[in-house]
């Protein structure tokens, strides 16, 4: 029943996306589409959470690959991701009802938006390789069209190009992986793939290919270059979906293949996800810290979080391979919980960035500032998002990081040497990325929302509409709930862990006082609710006492600033100056940051200039050689386009003689 409901809903989404074909010029079509999307997403969410019993639901439609059909299923993992996707989809739709009107060409965006949602839902529902890949690529294609919304900007066109190219690369990698999985006979449905026996070189190959395929879509480190270009280029509600939800769908692909289809894991499976996850987390957050484009910053931070999730998944694989089922479940639950959490607060932050963009027309934080005065509600909600994503208690980001740390602390008993060396390093990376994440968001929030306005646009900003605020408030509320009552969410995830790991964490509703305890209370526990209550109570008590017994008097005066404040807002600390210490200490290694100072000699009247050059080393070492090689080869081969007829005949002749010689042998 829920599967049929889901299917009908996906069909509905596709129908909605074709709405503009019938009602082309009608005003309000975009809003209608968003409202419909909201309704359908809500229904799909319901379909995900309807109790289904322990078994997976299956359905075969006579579509797709003829001899296999279009297989769909709904099991615990699918249900979880279905919930994540549609929670994101529903809130983004609410947001878009208000925000969508500000986007250029709203109807086009709305149509592709619906298609995008349909694609993401279908990926999760698919139960055969063909349907999976069709949905996967359809999702890429629809989002590609969305990235091209502002196609007049050459930068966006380039972003869309790199995006689709990388997506295609990933899809081809997955395709090859399914080729191995399906075997020579072409049994591409998941049920037969699960059953098929496999050599270890085949599993290794599949693992590498899946990491390339799903990793490139999720934005894992060396394959991430498209993400910070493409996500910001789309309208903000789409960016939110891409960052918050689509990357999760990519991770779904990884989990589905590696945890489900590939059979019982070996310990070395965990090495790649953990290594690349750790590299992604650190590199990406460093880049995020240096970004001055708010949406780009958020996109880089998405990569960081994807890295964190992959670390969790890798750990889980390692535990599972060693038969440590409860720790495996802890790591797996941590990853899933982080997936859920990240989808919440990343959407929230992108909505906030969109609100700022609507209000000021600016994405560059160096031209913002002081928005807390003009858009107090957005500022509050964005602050909440920053708090959550910076992994600070009592919000939800912390809980999943905490679980991740707990999982790491369970790992020293694993016998493999390589893991003994790798896991602590991964732990450092995790801790470092969390700490850098906090600095990154201090900078983002502090420069964009606090201080004095750096431009007229920022000064004259207006609070955004109720729909947008509503969507953001909902997400913040949910983040807070997940932070305060994590036990409830972990218990909800448990069936997934049970089904895919074989073990599960202890039921958290049996732990007293709404605490969570991953293994045993004596080992570690955390109670977000109590911490939150204590903090609020003591803050409130402090205020109450001070106002009652001492002084509540307040006077406004010019800022002190050691005696004199320069009225020009340019004297404030900027985003790039804020990042300077981090750039100096860590930047040289990570992105060959070069500072150039052009100081006029005494007596000269020209202005001094300071410029910083940041290069993406991965881009320089991995991508530039490829592009230049392609260019060189195509230039070189291009000479073949301008031969004379004799020379072409010569080619034919040579081929003929060669083949004859071959045959004569």
């Amino acid at each position, binding site marked *: 029943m829920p599967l049929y409901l889901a299917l009908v809903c996906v069909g509905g989404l596709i129908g909605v996306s074709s709405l503009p074909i019938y009602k082309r010029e009608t005003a309000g079509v975009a809003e209608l589409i968003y409202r419909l999307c909201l309704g359908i997403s809500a229904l799909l969410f319901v379909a995900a959470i309807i109790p289904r019993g322990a078994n997976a639901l299956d359905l075969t439609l006579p579509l797709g690959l003829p001899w296999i059909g279009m297989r769909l299923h709904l099991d615990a993992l699918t249900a979880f991701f279905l919930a994540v996707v549609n929670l994101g989809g529903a809130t983004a739709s609410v947001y878009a009802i208000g925000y969508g009107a500000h986007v250029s060409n709203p109807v086009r965006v709305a149509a592709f938006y619906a298609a995008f949602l349909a694609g993401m839902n279908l990926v999760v529902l698919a139960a055969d390789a063909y349907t999976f890949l069709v949905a996967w690529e359809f999702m890429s294609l629809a989002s590609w069209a969305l990235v091209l919304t502002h196609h007049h900007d050459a930068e966006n066109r380039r972003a869309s190009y790199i995006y689709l190219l990388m997506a295609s690369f990933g899809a081809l990698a997955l395709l090859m992986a399914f080729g191995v999985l399906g075997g020579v006979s072409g049994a591409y449905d998941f049920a037969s793939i699960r059953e098929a026996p496999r050599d270890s070189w085949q599993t290794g190959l599949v693992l590498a290919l899946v990491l390339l395929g799903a990793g490139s879509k999720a934005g894992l480190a060396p394959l991430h270059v498209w993400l910070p270009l493409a996500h910001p280029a789309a309208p903000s509600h789409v960016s939110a979906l891409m960052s918050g939800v689509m990357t999760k769908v990519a991770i779904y692909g990884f989990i589905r293949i590696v945890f489900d289809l590939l059979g019982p894991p070996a310990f070395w499976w965990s090495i790649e996800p953990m290594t690349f996850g750790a590299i992604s987390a650190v590199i990406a957050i460093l880049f995020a810290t240096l970004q001055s484009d708010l949406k780009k910053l958020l996109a880089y931070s998405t990569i960081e979080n994807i890295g964190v999730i992959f670390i969790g998944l890798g750990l889980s694989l390692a535990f599972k391979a060693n038969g440590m089922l409860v720790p495996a479940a802890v790591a797996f639950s941590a990853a899933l919980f982080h997936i859920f959490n990240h989808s919440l607060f990343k959407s929230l932050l992108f909505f906030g960035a969109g609100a700022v963009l609507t209000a000021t027309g600016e994405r560059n934080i160096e031209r913002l500032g002081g928005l807390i*005065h003009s858009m107090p509600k957005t500022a509050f909600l964005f*602050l909440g998002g920053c708090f959550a994503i910076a992994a600070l208690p009592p919000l939800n980001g912390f809980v999943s990081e905490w679980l991740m740390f707990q999982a790491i*602390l369970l790992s020293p008993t694993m016998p493999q040497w390589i893991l003994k060396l790798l896991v*602590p*390093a991964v*732990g450092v990376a995790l*801790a470092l990325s969390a700490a850098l994440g906090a600095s990154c968001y201090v900078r983002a929030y502090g420069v964009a929302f606090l201080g004095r306005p750096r431009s007229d646009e920022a000064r004259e900003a207006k609070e955004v509409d109720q729909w947008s605020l509503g969507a953001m408030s909902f997400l913040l509320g949910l983040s807070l709930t997940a932070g305060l009552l994590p036990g409830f969410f972990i218990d909800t995830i448990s069936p997934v862990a049970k089904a895919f790991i074989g073990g599960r964490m202890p039921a958290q509703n049996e732990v007293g006082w709404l605490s969570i305890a991953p293994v045993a209370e004596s080992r570690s526990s955390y109670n977000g609710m109590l911490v939150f209550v204590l903090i609020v109570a003591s803050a409130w008590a402090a205020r109450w006492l001070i106002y009652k017994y001492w002084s509540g008097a307040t006077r406004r005066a010019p*800022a002190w600033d050691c005696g004199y404040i320069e009225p020009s807002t340019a004297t404030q600390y900027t985003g790039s100056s804020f990042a300077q210490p981090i750039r100096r200490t860590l930047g040289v290694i990570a992105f060959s940051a070069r500072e150039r100072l052009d100081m006029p000699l005494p007596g000269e009247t020209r202005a001094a200039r300071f410029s910083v050059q940041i290069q993406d080393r991965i881009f320089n070492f991995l991508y530039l050689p490829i592009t230049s090689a392609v260019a060189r080869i195509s230039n070189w081969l291009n000479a073949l386009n301008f031969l004379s007829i004799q020379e072409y005949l010569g080619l034919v002749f040579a081929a003929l003689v060669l083949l004859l010689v071959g045959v004569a042998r």
Partner: protein
Amino acid sequence: MTIIFDLFAQILQMALVLLAAPLLIGFVRKVKAHLLRRQGPPIVQPWRDLLRLLRKETVLAENASWFYRAAPYFIFATTWVAASLTPTFENGLMFSWAADLIAIIALLGSARFLLALAGMDVGTSFGGIGSSREAMFGSLAEPATIMIVFTVSLVAGSTQLSEIASYMLAHSELRVSVGMALIALLIVAIAENGRVPVDNPATHLELTMVHEAMILEYSGRHLALIELASALKLLLYISLIDCMFFPWGMAPHGAGVVEMATGGVAFVFKLAVAGVLLAVFETSTAKMRVFRVPDFLGAGLMLGLLATLLVFVTRSL
């Protein structure tokens, strides 16, 4: 009955840390003054300052926002909660399961996050400078702390502070990894509390300030809360070190009044020792340049990582 007793102990702990923190600051100042052959203010001077600040009218910068006004309360509350959950005289506080070691570190992170943001609110250059440096120090200190936590928790088999303390009490043996962790934690503690050589709590020389720069615009009750929070933080770090490495004399969970009193005395003694050591250390070193601090903290981070690796590798031997 036990619950009431536990609650009482918990409240006592909360009150104790609150009371003791400014006194600790006063004590360190006093020792430093003595070392410099000065008389120095009395130990209760920080409390006097705080009360005076609380009584005063608060002057707000013209463009300070609601965030600026709310932040001090939350900075104080967060630090206080963290400090109250760290065992001082009694092991196994009532609420100790609410936040383990990692959560306590993260709570301090929350406080830092708020403080750094508050520094940027008015839009002055000094606030920015302070926040920026604080953010950098934090980015290195926090992972170092986590690594130290890893080491200690792996040795003790728990991240719960009370469990760690009882383990350490029961197995007082020398371990290289734990020693390294201790050194790393000392480094981190110095940096986190803005002590010499990382920052000078007494300075008001603009370009060298970190902590002081962030709170430059604060006054009155707000300033009092922030100062109190930073005092609490110093106390918290000393209690952490005590609890993880020197838990001697701490009363076990459910102990009687006498044991608790002994624990209290032991704690005060340990505070005093730490204060003296800190004062001696501060007077004998000079503040380092800001860009040397990452090296200093990096050393802490590396030590922490090394300690963790050691624990990991030796686990199966």
